[in-house]
């Protein structure tokens, strides 16, 4: 037997609407119904003009981040059964400009990911392995950054971040995590370049360690911990630079 739930969605169509407005729907659901399936059924049978991003349905493509009763979540990994007896209110991901309905403008976030040099920068003076050879990387070395390579770029941590809300210059959880991921990779030699970004006011020191990003991350990446580890590195960097100055 299917149960019913009331879902209210914040709508906004830039060409028609001066400001966002609410639209409510009744949706039937079973034990397996995800919020994404509910939104698709609304689009298919009740309101074809509702726009939202989605693709994989399995919490790996990172398309369907949105606010569910004020909490940033992936729609495909949110189940209606967990809201039985309540109402659901769906809004676009917080802290990003709204393009339309549940679609937000992610360009600032994507630009930050690109800015941090998210690729292996070979170590100076060390020869790279040939075409038919790998870098030797032990499971323990892999483990040092593995968790931080799991980010799906959904933007949920930016919607959760109180500092990003206040200051859009802050590099933010996912980008700082990606820096840490490459810095800790035994194949990489680009740490010095990336630490400049980490050490800036808009780097790790902007984080007030609320930890809500890690609480909301749908993939257990734990950006807050990457940032704290980044702070340790940044502090070391600072001390080393002081010593260097003294020795000059």
């Amino acid at each position, binding site marked *: 037997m299917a149960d019913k739930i009331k879902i209210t969605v914040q709508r906004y169509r830039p060409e028609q609407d001066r400001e966002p407005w609410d639209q409510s729907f009744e949706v039937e659901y079973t034990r*397996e119904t995800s919020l994404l399936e509910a939104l698709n059924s609304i689009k298919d049978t009740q309101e*074809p003009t509702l726009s939202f991003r989605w693709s994989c349905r399995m919490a790996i493509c990172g398309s369907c981040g949105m606010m569910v009763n004020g909490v940033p979540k992936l729609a495909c990994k949110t189940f209606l059964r967990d809201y039985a007896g309540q109402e659901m209110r769906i809004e676009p991901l917080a802290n990003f400009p709204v393009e*339309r309905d549940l679609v937000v403008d992610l360009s600032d976030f994507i630009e930050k990911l690109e800015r941090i040099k998210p690729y292996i920068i070979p170590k100076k003076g060390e020869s790279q392995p040939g075409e038919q050879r790998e870098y*030797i990387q*032990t499971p323990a070395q892999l483990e040092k950054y593995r968790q931080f390579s799991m980010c799906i770029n959904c933007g949920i941590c930016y919607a959760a971040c109180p500092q990003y809300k206040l200051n859009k210059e802050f590099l933010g959880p996912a980008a700082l995590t990606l820096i840490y991921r490459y810095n800790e990779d035994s194949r990489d030699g680009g740490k010095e370049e990336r630490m400049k970004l980490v050490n800036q006011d808009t780097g790790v020191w902007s984080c007030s360690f609320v930890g809500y990003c890690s609480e909301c991350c749908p993939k257990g990446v734990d950006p807050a911990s990457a940032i704290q580890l980044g702070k340790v590195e940044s502090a070391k960097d600072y001390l080393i630079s002081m010593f260097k100055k003294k020795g000059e």
Partner: protein
Amino acid sequence: MDVVKADVAIVGAGGSGLRAAIAAAELNPDLKVALISKVYPMRSHTVAAEGGAAGVVRDDDSLDYHFHDTVAGGDWLCEQDVVDYFVHNTTRELYQLEHWGCPWSRKPDGRINVRPFGGMKVPRTWFAADKTGFHMLHTLFQTSTKYKSIIRYDEHFVLDLLVRDNQVYGVVTLDMQNGVVRMIQAKSVIIATGGSNRCYRFNTNGGIVTGDGMALAYRHGVPLRDMEFVQYHPTGLPGCGILMTEGCRGEGGVLTNKDGYRYLQDYGLGPETPLGQPKSKYMELGPRDRVSQAFWQEQQKGRTIKTHLGDVVNLDLRHLGADYLEERLPFICELARAYVGVDPVKEPVPVRPTVHYTMGGIETNGRTGTRIAGLYAAGECASVGIHGANRLGSNSLVETVVFGRVAGEEAAKFAAENEHTDTAPLTQIAQESLDKALSLVSGERSESVSQIRNEMGDAMEEGIGIYRTDESIRKTIDKLTALKERYRNIKINDQSTIFNTDWLTAIELGFLLGNAEAMAYSALNRTESRGSHQRLDFTERNDEQFLKHSLATYNPDGAPSITYSDVKITKLPPAKRVYGIEAENAEKAAKAAAQNNGGNQ
């Protein structure tokens, strides 16, 4: 209309598109590369590939073995010269990804680790736990940001190719965020848009996998080749169809029916192997077509398990233990817990076959070139000739990088040798394409996009599923013809120019309907059984008549025409396709015969 110029335009930014962009940028840094995708690159469906990518690395393995597995696995419908190029280049490409930072799983000594996969004689599947596609895609995307000559057009929906006198001159796109029509003029174009599996209702694929590039090339006269070969993956979750990787079985998972019996031994894949000791080409490590067909047979015999989400069998992983599962198959555990409420550590996972991969696609030569000058295709959207009638698991992820690279280099060379033509006539072609797309939005209409989409998906499942007959295919064809007619009367409610998904899904549905027809007519005319194309009315392989590729050619006024082209056989003549003990015996017999011949080989 906004007009921009590039040298190479790439449509699709998944594994193939990104690899092509990097290859073009590296070969010739002076070229402007436009990388166009209807989503942000990391949303591309490459992201969902789990199990791994094939590349020979072990001492007991060889390129010959990989060649043999692939050609026999494809039931001899592979282009053998292309497979030869493929197996020679897989490992180099996987090392290249390693150098770019892909977090491949390692052996204790820090070298690359490999796992067994279905239909492969020796373990050769590189993996990054069970998120291999995710890590490959993010590695490629992140690495691509290093190249200043790659200019991305994210969330740009390609409405059409600009083709004149059998040469391509670019694409016309819709910038979804800004509601701007942008023509991207280019000297060469690569299509890398993935499969068309959303033709089916029940599949492992993301919503974006709508065969856009296939449809565009097809409408411009490039044949779609071998479209009847659609892969059912044996292990999808019931209801949603989410993939449980073949890596589950590679690591030792087993399939059981309602009696707890490992039924694969009854279908030419046995004898049964001991629990926890997977053996290459035996039982659960059979190829996907055979394993999916065995499910259907069990279902006919009433030996599958009935659930509220349909009939299933059990994928049992419990004997692998919590620690091992957490190391090798963490995503599988996460997905099973979230989407069917089953913890694989404690309970078997319910699974059933689900549509997964389009073996056929845009006809290309071995260097990814099509019949249209300047137009290339790579990855799942293409039929370069390595998968034949059945793709082996872990061959497609590596295909994206091997042939993505080839496409990037070929398109870069073509662009360097050609000049831009006049823009004005192209703008006119672009305007005509736009008008056609816009005509969907206007007028009094009544048909619903989702209704037609669902009816198409159901008809494909029913008529062109794991087993087909003349009758079932014809019924589906009739349905598709009726749906195409109804499609002309489709109602678009949304009149906005910004992120209008009502309109865009309608355009995608048009792509899907055409591709579905190509699948259906190709299936109808192939009156034999081969690989994933199994006919209950023609149960044997018929090499005399059908050791041929099907070519579906678009016809704007009705059904596609189906013709055939030769299959390139170089060193492995067609033979019986066998697995399990039969394969072992065949190999022994071949060795003995070779010795009796004086040991020539």
